[in-house]
């Protein structure tokens, strides 16, 4: 998955784990460029940045020094660097957690920001604007990479922590000197660890998407060592000369395997070798003098390897289908576009700063229970009935069908109509599970009613999980919680006499 969880070591602290890197022309202003990096795969709603990591985005001017089978992109030594650092947590007057941070700009100016402030922060001159905070994961992967089976997006509803910097292209990059650039992002400890051993220069880094999880660690290459951590310890723009042959050979082996995934050899051995050499120099190429679109990702590399001048600005937009573009290139050399099981991420990017969609909401849970001083079977004989007629808020129920798949159409006393489906029932274990068909503004709505023995009596439990649909969590939660609490509360009264 892009660069998500790309090595055993990076599993350590999730905010150090880089998932993606982007470079594109600002949708708001074509005179500005946007660079963005994401960290923390599958971040939850409360995720924050580490206070001991520098998040760096580094750009170097690049020249094309060879084409065709001699394709080569040579980076300059000079580096344009944005460094983000985040502070310990603070709290506002209401006790809400706040995290602040700073971005050190390439010219040494410092810009302060507050995490999750959607407006971001700008320099007084307005030439640079930055954002940091939780966003919907823009990446989507809809393949099982080992078998090329198409599946729905494996990162659906995921969030990541995003860092976005937008700047005046002319002022920061000075494209008059050359408009082609390579960009990388890295996470680096702010201070070295103990005096014993050598502190790591970085924890993770990324150039083009999928260098680690697809190209170096091709899941179909069996019996080979996992060299992702070794790769992550390399210095961007300067891969160790001693280790270059190892990485190059792995890329060749991997690309040979990818080429034959459809049973056809679309690459010559020379082409595979050229491809491996270009991808060994791992930085994301973008040209600020040419159009960067959702389709232009990797076009610079691909055209140059194929021996022709590139036409676009390459880069990578928020909505770029980077995995399918890569698979198509590796597997059939762009003979036929390979589309996975999804056509977009959970949410598309936006046309306004910070360009990454708002975060996805978490699964909500309402769970209540009531202890009753009567035998479990007695309670189950009542609430184990799928018709829910025991519930005081239920005015009328229509049942359709029988057994698993049975539908109940409930009319509540306040006029709401809810349709639910029976999914699982186990009389011996005294539980049933159902899902919502219609009537509550929620998706992935699943409920469980269960009766467990406890002491000489029992506990009746009712648990509902859901994702609110276009409604605040609290609004849907109130509806569900009222239903659950009223129902269980009525059992207390009903069985009090029997106890």
């Amino acid at each position, binding site marked *: 998955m892009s660069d998500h969880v790309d090595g*055993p*070591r*990076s599993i*350590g*602290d*999730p*905010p*150090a784990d880089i998932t993606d890197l982007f470079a594109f022309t600002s949708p708001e202003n074509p005179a500005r460029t946007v660079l963005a990096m994401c960290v*923390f795969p*599958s*971040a*939850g*709603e*409360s*995720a*924050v*940045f*580490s*206070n*001991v*990591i520098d998040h760096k985005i580094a750009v170097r001017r690049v020249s094309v020094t060879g084409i065709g089978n001699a394709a080569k992109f040579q980076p300059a030594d000079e580096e344009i660097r944005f460094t983000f650092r985040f502070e*310990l*947590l603070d709290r506002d007057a209401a006790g809400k*957690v706040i995290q602040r941070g700073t971005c050190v700009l390439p010219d040494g100016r410092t810009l302060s920001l507050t995490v999750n402030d959607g407006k971001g922060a700008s320099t007084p001159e307005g030439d640079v604007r930055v954002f940091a905070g939780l966003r919907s994961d823009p990446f989507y992967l809809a393949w099982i990479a080992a078998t090329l089976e198409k599946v729905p997006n*494996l990162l*659906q*509803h*995921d*969030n990541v922590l995003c860092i976005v910097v937008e700047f005046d292209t002319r002022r920061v990059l000075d494209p008059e000197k050359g408009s082609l650039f390579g960009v990388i992002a890295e996470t680096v*400890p*702010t*201070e*070295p*660890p*103990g*005096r*014993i*051993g050598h*502190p*790591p220069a970085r*924890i993770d880094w990324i150039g083009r998407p999928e260098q680690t999880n697809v190209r170096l660690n091709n899941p179909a290459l069996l019996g080979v060592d996992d060299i992702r951590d070794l790769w992550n310890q390399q210095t961007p723009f300067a891969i160790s000369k001693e280790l270059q042959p190892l990485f190059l050979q792995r890329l060749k082996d991997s690309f040979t395997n990818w080429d034959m995934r459809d049973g056809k050899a679309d690459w010559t051995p020379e082409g595979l070798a050229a491809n491996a050499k270009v991808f060994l120099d791992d930085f994301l190429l973008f040209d600020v003098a040419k159009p960067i679109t959702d389709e232009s990702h990797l076009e610079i590399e691909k055209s140059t390897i194929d021996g022709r001048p590139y036409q676009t600005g390459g880069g990578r937009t928020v909505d770029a289908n980077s995995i399918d573009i890569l698979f198509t290139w590796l597997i059939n050399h762009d003979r036929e576009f390979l589309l996975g099981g999804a056509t977009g991420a959970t949410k598309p990017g936006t046309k306004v700063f910070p360009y990454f969609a708002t975060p996805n909401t*978490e*699964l909500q849970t309402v769970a209540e229970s009531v202890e009753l001083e009567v035998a479990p079977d007695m309670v189950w004989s009542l609430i184990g009935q799928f018709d829910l007629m025991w519930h005081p808020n239920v005015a009328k129920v229509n049942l359709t069908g029988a057994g698993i798949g049975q539908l109940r159409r409930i009319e509540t006393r306040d006029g709401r109509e809810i349709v639910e489906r029976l999914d*699982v029932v186990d009389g011996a274990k005294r539980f049933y599970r159902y899902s919502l068909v219609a009537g509550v503004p929620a998706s*992935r709505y*699943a409920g469980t009613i269960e009766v467990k023995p406890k002491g000489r009596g029992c506990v009746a439990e009712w648990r509902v*999980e859901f994702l609110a649909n276009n409604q605040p969590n609290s609004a849907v939660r109130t509806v569900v919680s009222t239903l659950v609490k009223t129902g269980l509360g009525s059992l207390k009264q009903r069985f009090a006499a029997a106890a």
Partner: protein
Amino acid sequence: MEREPPCPSATDGEIAAINLESARRRAWTRFAQDACLLGVAEAVVDQERLAAQFFSDLDALDRLEALAAQLALVDASSRAALVQAEVASTAHRFADARGHLSRATLMGARREEIERQSLSIDQACGVKLDAVLAARQQVAAASGRLEDLVPLGALLADLERFAEADAVYRQALFSYRDVSPFPLAWVCFQLGMLWGELVPVPDPKLAAFWYRRAIAYLPGYVKARVHLAEICASQDRPGDAEALLMPVLSSRDPEVRWRLADALIAQERFQEAETQLDAARSGFDELLQRHLLAFADHAAEFYAGSGNDFRRAVELARANVANRPTRRAVEQAQAIAVQVDEAAASRSVRSMQCAGGVSRRLAARCAAQHDQVIR
């Protein structure tokens, strides 16, 4: 402790705790979306175990058992059996865990995964220790990673090879190359246990040093606070013990209430102590009802001491021995039996006095074993 080098820096403990909770909740959401998705159930297990190990989240075991049951309903592959084994091990239901592993083997689970879990179970149960040691040494030498070095250190400590254990723990600590505070706090805690409770002649000063470092990494590390509080109490500093325990009262770990009661008794605040002891007693009762084997060792120590119920202590110690007949478990059962005899000879309030005394080292040893199983 000037002679100790500075520890590696790590993400602030509060940030790490928030991010763990964030990731844990998100993992559950992903599990609800698609329980069969590779790696999702396993991520939930990892995060719930961290919550249990560091923050004594007592509901984690319940949640894990619900996860294993749900996964078994929807996933017919060996994965479900492996997750069930992991969950059973976490709850110290080692016989169940072995059963699940046997099923997983028959269903074609990867040999490495079966061996990894079997190794942990053998170590926790104190069986085939020579083979376990050889395997642990081989794995640790090959990877050099903290997560492989710490179990080796724990095993060396079990085998009373304390100097080697210390060296391995330090290697783990200073070779760590990431910034998560969880592994670092874990190693510091293990070093605290080693020097405070496992070596023949404990060094409370050194142990306190390591516990403080564990707490510095993770202020919410409940067990580290409990153990450091015990040292404070043993040094006639019950006020310090109380101050250490108060911030983690919300963890619902009955051991916090128990040690707080001891600190209050030492300050002659008997009424407050009684309230804490009642809370500890009902906390242990509730835990034992749900997860007897997971808490039998700790609860046995409680009932043999401040809990003042020797019959129950003996029953629990025996249950623990039957579940995993390790040398420590047997020693614990014997020590409690001796206490029962003494109590029978002299029924007095001395049970209150011995609250953190004779039994503390044994309780700590069991805790060490518990923590290494959790990993």
